[in-house]
């Protein structure tokens, strides 16, 4: 007898007020299959997963679970059926131990000691190194993710949903995760793997369903496909090729950090220790590293959000700006794009037009009056120039998809013609098409003579656009190396802080 499919969706549709998020979606997942769901941001992946996990109810369509029609009303019911989900953003309490965090999500019949024992058992059988007794704030991001996965596995799920799981991992940690997932699949657990990273899907998954604008545009075996074929299914076109002009030799010294040390501002932050680096006009300096190694703190010290830096430790064209306000730095030509788009780079409930006012004050006259017409025009220009998909200049920032809001924010800063642009995670959670466009804009800005400091967790991206690279680990920054010297292995090792011996001769790059 043929085993029924683990999960079968047919004709799933979901209409939101502004957009049809899912339109007649079919999806079939066999037991033990690693099934990729590929799509750009806004293609309807998240809605589909929420429907499977019971967080959203579909308008139409049928869900079969192990051959039986079911209607999944809530995440609790989904867990009872044997569906577990690991979210992209972890939901762990920093001050509690790993075991206590897992315990919180379970029914209360078990004691903490029993839970701890079960965690160790689960962790061991899947090769997930987790110490249940350690407080979460001492764990690396990869370890936190393992805690989340262990938590999901505690209920012996038959289907595990992973949402963009590798966006926070080092290349080495990604390999470890893949081994775990393959092992799970061998034991019959089905896995839904949501991602837009084509290489990973081709390396890991048995089957791939591609979504575009709420519809299924392809069902393929990714192992037999090229990146170009997959991306054509996903965005309907080849991704634009990057034009990477050779650096024309370094220009004037634009931004110099020396002896930048900062005690941590919050208990679970990272202290910065003696950071030194030099950024020249007309180059892109990439900052690699696993998140949580001081990148956030460095960005805040550069942007002026944290103005505690020692005097003289941050210099912009020779001028000390270590303790200048964010607005002062911006007036001097240093612009910044933060990694959080909603709530930091933009105010969610305000319109795009009003959001231009956060960093652009051309529409404000000397007396402090705002010219509404000018604000409106600026937003409309940005929308047109950077091809932002939005309901006009009056659309609330939160109504945009992540990629489109990022295009708007990056565009807002690029359009200001900065002399130095500091940008964190330029394409984090952004679809392939938008990511290529943003990288192209950054390169064009470099060619126009701007100095760029790009912090990213995606090594591919840094290798693609950087002229030189530094690595951050434990609140310190490695010496800079040119792209000719950089290899993935070397940078991967440096991410663990191992650059002291070999890096010395490059210190004055």
């Amino acid at each position: 007898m043929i085993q029924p499919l683990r999960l079968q969706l047919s004709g799933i549709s979901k209409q939101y007020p502004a957009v049809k998020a899912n339109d007649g979606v079919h999806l079939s997942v066999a037991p033990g299959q690693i099934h990729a769901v590929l799509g750009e941001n806004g293609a309807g992946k998240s809605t589909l997963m929420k429907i499977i996990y019971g967080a959203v109810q579909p308008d139409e369509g049928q869900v079969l679970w192990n051959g039986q029609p079911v209607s999944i009303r809530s995440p609790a019911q989904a867990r009872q059926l044997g569906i577990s989900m690991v979210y992209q953003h972890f939901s762990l309490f920093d001050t509690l131990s790993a075991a206590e965090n897992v315990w919180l999500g379970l029914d209360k019949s078990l004691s903490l000691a029993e839970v701890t024992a079960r965690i160790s058992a689960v962790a061991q059988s899947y090769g997930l190194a987790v110490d249940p007794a350690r407080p979460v704030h001492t764990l690396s991001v990869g370890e936190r993710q393992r805690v989340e996965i262990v938590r999901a596995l505690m209920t012996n799920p038959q289907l595990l949903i992973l949402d963009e799981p590798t966006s926070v991992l080092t290349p080495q940690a990604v390999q470890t995760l893949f081994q775990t997932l393959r092992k799970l699949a061998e034991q019959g657990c089905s896995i839904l793997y949501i991602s837009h990273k084509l290489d990973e899907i081709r390396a890991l998954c048995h089957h791939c369903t591609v979504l575009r604008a709420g519809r299924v545009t392809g069902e393929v075996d990714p192992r037999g496909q090229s990146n170009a074929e997959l991306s054509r299914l996903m965005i309907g076109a080849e991704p634009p090729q990057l034009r990477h002009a050779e650096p024309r030799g370094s220009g004037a010294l634009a931004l110099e950090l020396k002896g930048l040390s900062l005690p941590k501002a919050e208990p679970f932050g990272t202290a910065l220790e003696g950071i030194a680096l030099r950024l020249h006009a007309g180059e892109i300096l990439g900052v690699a590293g696993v998140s949580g190694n001081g990148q956030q703190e460095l960005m805040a010290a550069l942007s002026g959000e944290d103005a505690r830096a020692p005097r003289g430790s941050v210099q912009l064209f020779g001028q000390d700006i270590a303790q200048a306000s964010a607005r002062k730095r911006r007036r001097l030509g240093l612009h910044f794009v933060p990694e959080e788009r909603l709530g930091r780079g933009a105010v969610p409930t305000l319109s795009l037009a009003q959001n231009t006012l956060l960093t652009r004050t051309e529409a404000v006259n000397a007396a402090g009056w705002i010219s509404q017409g000018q604000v409106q025009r600026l937003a409309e220009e940005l929308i047109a120039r950077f091809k932002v998909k939005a309901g006009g200049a009056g659309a609330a920032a939160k109504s945009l998809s992540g990629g489109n809001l990022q295009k708007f924010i990056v565009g807002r800063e690029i359009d200001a013609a900065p002399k130095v642009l500091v940008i964190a995670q330029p394409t984090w959670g952004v679809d392939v098409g938008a990511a290529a466009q943003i990288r192209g804009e950054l390169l064009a800005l470099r060619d126009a003579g701007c100095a760029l400091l790009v912090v990213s967790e995606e090594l591919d991206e840094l290798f693609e656009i950087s002229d030189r690279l530094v690595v951050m680990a434990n609140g310190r920054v490695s010496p800079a190396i040119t792209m000719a010297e950089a290899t993935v292995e070397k940078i991967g090792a440096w991410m663990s802080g191992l650059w002291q011996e070999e890096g010395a001769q490059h210190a004055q790059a």
Partner: protein
Amino acid sequence: MLRLEIRPQPSKLMSLASPLLALAITTLLGIALFLLLGKDPLRGLQMFFWEPIKSAYGWSELGIKATPLVLIALGLAVCFRSNVWNIGAEGQFVVGALAGGWVAMQADASSGRSIVLWILLAGVAGGMAWAALTAWLRDRFNASEILVSLMLVYVADLLLGYLVYGPWKDPNGYNFPQSISFLAVTKIPKLFDGWRVNIGVLIALGSVLACWALLFRTYAGFALQVGGLAPAAARYAGFSSRRSLWLALLLSGGMAGLAGALEAAGPLGQLTPYVPAGYGFAAIIVAFVGRLHPVGIIFSAILMSMFYIGGELAQSRLGLPKSITGVFQGLLLFTLLACDTLIHYRIRRARS
């Protein structure tokens, strides 16, 4: 079991209709209340919704009550939009009345009409000073502005009591706890002969315009609101949260103080222990029912004033207790919050 589920897209129309819906529910609850108390509900509603507005005299009285409500609520709207929770406008109102009253008590036969301006300025300064205490405690010691501003209301009440029972007591006042009656020259100019309504109404309307411009047309107002909506975005933009705190508290304190001075030198004409009439607290309801919008605040202040006057009428004509005013005001806020919840959430039946 019922549970609340967040709506993907809150309706803009409903956020405007919500105060009207709340008013309708308040009215229905009012009818039930009158029936329970054995009164004719029609007569009861008439006291609240018709008697206060049926004559020009009624409108004059509404203006007297609505003026302090509008002024205080405008300041509070700016505060609340900046995420600064000033609950102590009542105290700032009292200190404003004390400061304005002190200037009024200095008047003598040689004083000119310009003293009114000084009374109002003193009121603003008094309210600002009282709010500055809260701002300083928050800024310097990170004390909760909600608790500090609220507790300072009672300090202000005690200060008023000390002054009118002690140093400022009228020597010819038969030992009543009250200051001298202010000279006629200090009176806030009236708009029409024979009615109590004074230029405070014009000041309030001017303030509505000024607050609207501040909030929606100036960079300073934008910075204040960003600080309230998304503190991280305000830091990113480089807007100082300390500046917002001081600006919002000084502005709302000044507005409450101005209302206090207008009241002391207007309808009251002297200082008594009965200066605090609850305007500072009622204005919190006014600000929210008015959607924290300057124009909305005009309408909600008129509505709240109808409750004040209706309550007094219900007391004298129907023999209902005066606390009926507070009951109506409370019901309105309660139903508004309930309606607002349903704008952002919907109720779902969940089996658990």
